[in-house]
């Protein structure tokens, strides 16, 4: 039997606001437990939530970036359940009237592109954190995270493979950073994915029973968890069993998923509109203002790289896949507008290879965008050749100084003095009569021999273009 995988993702992006969604407490990560929880976050008797406008602003930005309908009147609801790290006994969220309605985003897998639907995105508050391994007889609760604003982004079940799911998640991850609403830090939990996975016989319309996978904190784990789940479901069905609707926890250490709770055990959250908060009204003017302040979106940037810089589709796609990468590239461009293709090659080639090899993020690159930009400038103005530039790059990476300093210190400046190169060329021609004869009799390939000799004599510093011209004129 041929099976088709159907995946929908629920992404929780922590909005990078200074204060919490309903209180003035700071959202800073990694502080002393319970040092950033005020009366409102603690759920003391009598306290009331007040909506942080910055969170609304950021949610709208996301909606606009995925071409979604913005619900100009949206409502906060209470999701009621008891848990010690949920101080009020309910989470303030949005059920029927989310701030962001239907939108879409384009993903690329290899040369293929595909549109993935965004069902909705809604604002909600995060819960605190329970710590079970700190004390023998007690669990500890840290409420610093309680009340941190989250945007829950729900996709349509439009993805058909783990690869597509990862491509979509990465696209959203890049987007939220582009528009400055989330720092995207997956280790700190600022960007979390839950995956709804089901399978059905190829060609069948009706969706299979899904399992929801939770606790996935990297793209690598997302792919693994989905593939594991697809295998598990196939095994069950092919053995004559039935998949049950349930929530499953991904365990990265054991590389397995296990059941957390079934549909029957699921809570009845008793949602109802939060009477402490008025419906959010978003004026046309507010919407227009946010629209006008929206930064260039990845898809717009990609189009600009293709149309204005002459990059090909693939290069433009890679360079805009992460905001940090695009930023790096654009800083390089400032001094090298005419060398865009060269800049692109270096970022995607030498730089990316070195970063990957050393497992360094581009933000922490030992070679800064300014450093690399200068190096490209020196290639462009014929100070050094591309070949020499690779050595200079390595020296910059090793902290030996700027491109100019290294070129100077190591005497790597190209010979552009026609007279000096001419003298060397004359000598080589004089010493290699047989090869000269071969060239004159039509063997073009022999030119490489002369170039090699000349480069050897100049330690690679002869300007290749100049050298070629001189050789041709002298030989003919």
């Amino acid at each position: 039997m041929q099976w088709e995988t159907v995946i929908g993702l629920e992404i929780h992006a922590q909005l990078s606001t200074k204060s919490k969604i309903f209180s003035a407490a700071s959202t800073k990560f990694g502080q002393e437990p319970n040092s950033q929880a005020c009366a409102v976050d603690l759920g003391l008797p009598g306290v009331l939530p007040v909506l942080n406008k910055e969170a609304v602003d950021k949610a709208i930005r996301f909606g606009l970036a995925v071409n979604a309908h913005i619900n100009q009147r949206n409502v906060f609801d209470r999701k009621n359940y008891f848990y010690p790290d949920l101080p009020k006994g309910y989470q303030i969220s949005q059920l029927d009237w989310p701030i962001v309605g239907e939108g879409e985003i384009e993903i690329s897998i290899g040369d293929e592109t595909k549109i993935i639907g965004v069902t909705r995105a809604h604002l909600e508050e995060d819960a605190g954190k329970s710590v079970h391994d700190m004390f023998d007889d007690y669990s500890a609760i840290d409420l610093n995270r309680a009340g941190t604003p989250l945007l829950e982004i729900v996709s349509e079940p439009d993805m058909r493979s783990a690869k597509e799911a990862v491509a979509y998640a990465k696209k959203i991850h890049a987007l939220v950073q582009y528009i400055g609403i989330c720092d995207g830090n997956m280790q700190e939990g600022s960007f979390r994915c839950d995956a709804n996975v089901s399978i059905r016989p190829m060609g069948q319309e009706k969706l299979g029973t899904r399992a929801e996978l939770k606790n996935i904190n990297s793209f690598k784990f997302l792919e693994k968890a989905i593939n594991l789940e697809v295998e598990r479901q196939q095994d069950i069905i092919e053995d004559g069993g039935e998949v049950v609707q349930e929530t499953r926890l991904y365990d990265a250490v054991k590389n397995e998923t296990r059941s957390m709770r079934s549909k029957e055990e699921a809570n009845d959250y008793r949602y109802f509109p939060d009477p402490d908060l008025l419906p959010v009204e978003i004026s046309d003017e507010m919407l227009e203002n946010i629209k006008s302040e929206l930064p260039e979106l990845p898809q717009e940037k990609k189009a600009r790289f293709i149309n204005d810089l002459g990059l090909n589709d693939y290069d433009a796609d890679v360079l805009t896949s992460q905001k940090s990468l695009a930023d790096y590239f654009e800083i390089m461009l400032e001094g090298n507008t005419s060398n865009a293709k060269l800049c692109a090659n270096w970022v995607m080639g030498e730089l990316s290879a070195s970063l990957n090899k050393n497992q360094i993020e581009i933000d922490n690159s030992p070679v800064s965008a300014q450093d690399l930009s200068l190096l490209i400038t020196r290639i462009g103005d014929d100070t050094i050749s591309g070949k020499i530039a690779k050595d200079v790059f390595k020296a910059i990476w090793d902290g030996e100084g700027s491109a100019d300093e290294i070129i100077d210190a190591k005497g790597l400046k190209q010979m552009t003095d026609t007279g000096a190169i001419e003298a060397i060329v004359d000598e080589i021609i004089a010493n290699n009569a047989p090869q000269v004869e071969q060239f004159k009799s039509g063997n073009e390939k022999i030119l490489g021999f002369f170039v090699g000799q000349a480069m050897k004599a100049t330690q690679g510093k002869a300007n290749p273009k100049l050298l070629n011209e001189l050789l041709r004129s002298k030989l003919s």
Partner: protein
Amino acid sequence: MHKKTIVELAQGLKDREFSSVELTKYYLDRINKSDLNAFITVTDDLAMIQAQAADDKIAAGDSGILTGIPYAHKDIFCTKGVKTSAGSKMLDNFVSPYDATVSHKLNSEDLVMLGKANMDEFAMGSSNENSYYGEVKNPWNKTKIPGGSSGGSAASVAAGLSVFATGTDTGGSIRQPSSLCGITGLKPTYGRISRYGMIAYASSLDQAGPMTKTAQDSAIVLNAMAGFDEKDSTSAQVDVPDYTANLNNSIEGLTIGLPKEFFSEGLDDVVASSVMAAVKEFEKMGATVKEVSLPNSAYAIPTYYIVAPCECSSNLSRLDGVRYGYRCEDPKDLEDLYLRSRSEAFGDEVKRRIMIGAYALSAGYYDAYYLKAQKTRHLISDDFKKAFTEVDVIMGPVSPTTAFDLGSVKDPVSMYLADIYTLSANLAGLPGMSIPAGFAQNLPVGLQLIGDYWSESKLLNIAHQFQLQTDWHTKEPQEN
């Protein structure tokens, strides 16, 4: 001394007839001798400190009308450093680390808080028999209930244990005890006074207000309590006028609406005749009377007893024994901690409403109950909107009976029926008042005034004019 109003006490303080310290001692002494159980906590030491500070301000010529005036604060308002119990065992050990906005505002007027007034647990009740701290007795007859939930506040003012008190009104909790104790109680428009720090019962209905001897005092206290608060998203950005400014306006030409639904079966004849006598008094003063209809008011009780329990079932979830409040002994696991802490600390009425609310909100019932109740709520509001196109104010009884015997109403539904005339104003968010309008069987009868949105000035004006012509509000219960 305890017969004096705020206006009279303020004059006495200003003229140095007595100091705030003397006044405070006098009231504290009366509270200590009282057997009404009107207070959960008496804050003697704090009161004396505040009184001294007030005297200093008066001496420095830096005082306002409320400087040094002693009052009782309903124990539902958070008061920093002072136990705030909401009448519940659940919060018996809760000392609030912060002040409610109302507490803060009253403090900044240099008032003297004598203590925290008794109340039905979490403001759920109409007789003040649901308090963990015991029932409050009606000063007019100690075998009778004082009304609820602000029963301690009402009894305190009626018995001269404080010159005024704060109250909160979710379904009549200011107006009904004011009526049964013979004082002046005002529930302002929803959103007029900040709810921040006022322990929530039903968020969309709760509203604080003053409980005083006179309408004039009510206006003075409302001036101090009202106003937009950025900490309460539901508080209104509506200007606060000087509520004393229009008290003396003539009410000639006033059109009074009498809803026929408020004078149907279930209303005690003795209450009806006091109310009608009061209406006659207004006619003498130049008002005209018109019958109006509030056809959906029959649904006020079922609507209220869905909406309020739904909200309270969620509002009280934070009382889980985890961070503060009551926690059961030796919980064996998390579920046991929740179950026993809440079972042991909540009273029957609170449990009943939490269960009703949780049921009405649960999947499959939400549309039939909560949504239906919200729709009915709109219809009730619309009835009033229509009525206010024809009349300036609506009048009627506050409670169908005078104060009943302590312990006499055992069936919760019969108790709920006592709220029949007060609930509509909460559901619609309208301002309402109870003013003393007579006596029946030696017990006070209140007249209810319901006004259009933000018409507090008008209501206070009407009430004040009535009090200039009548002396019901000056009657005092006999002491022991």
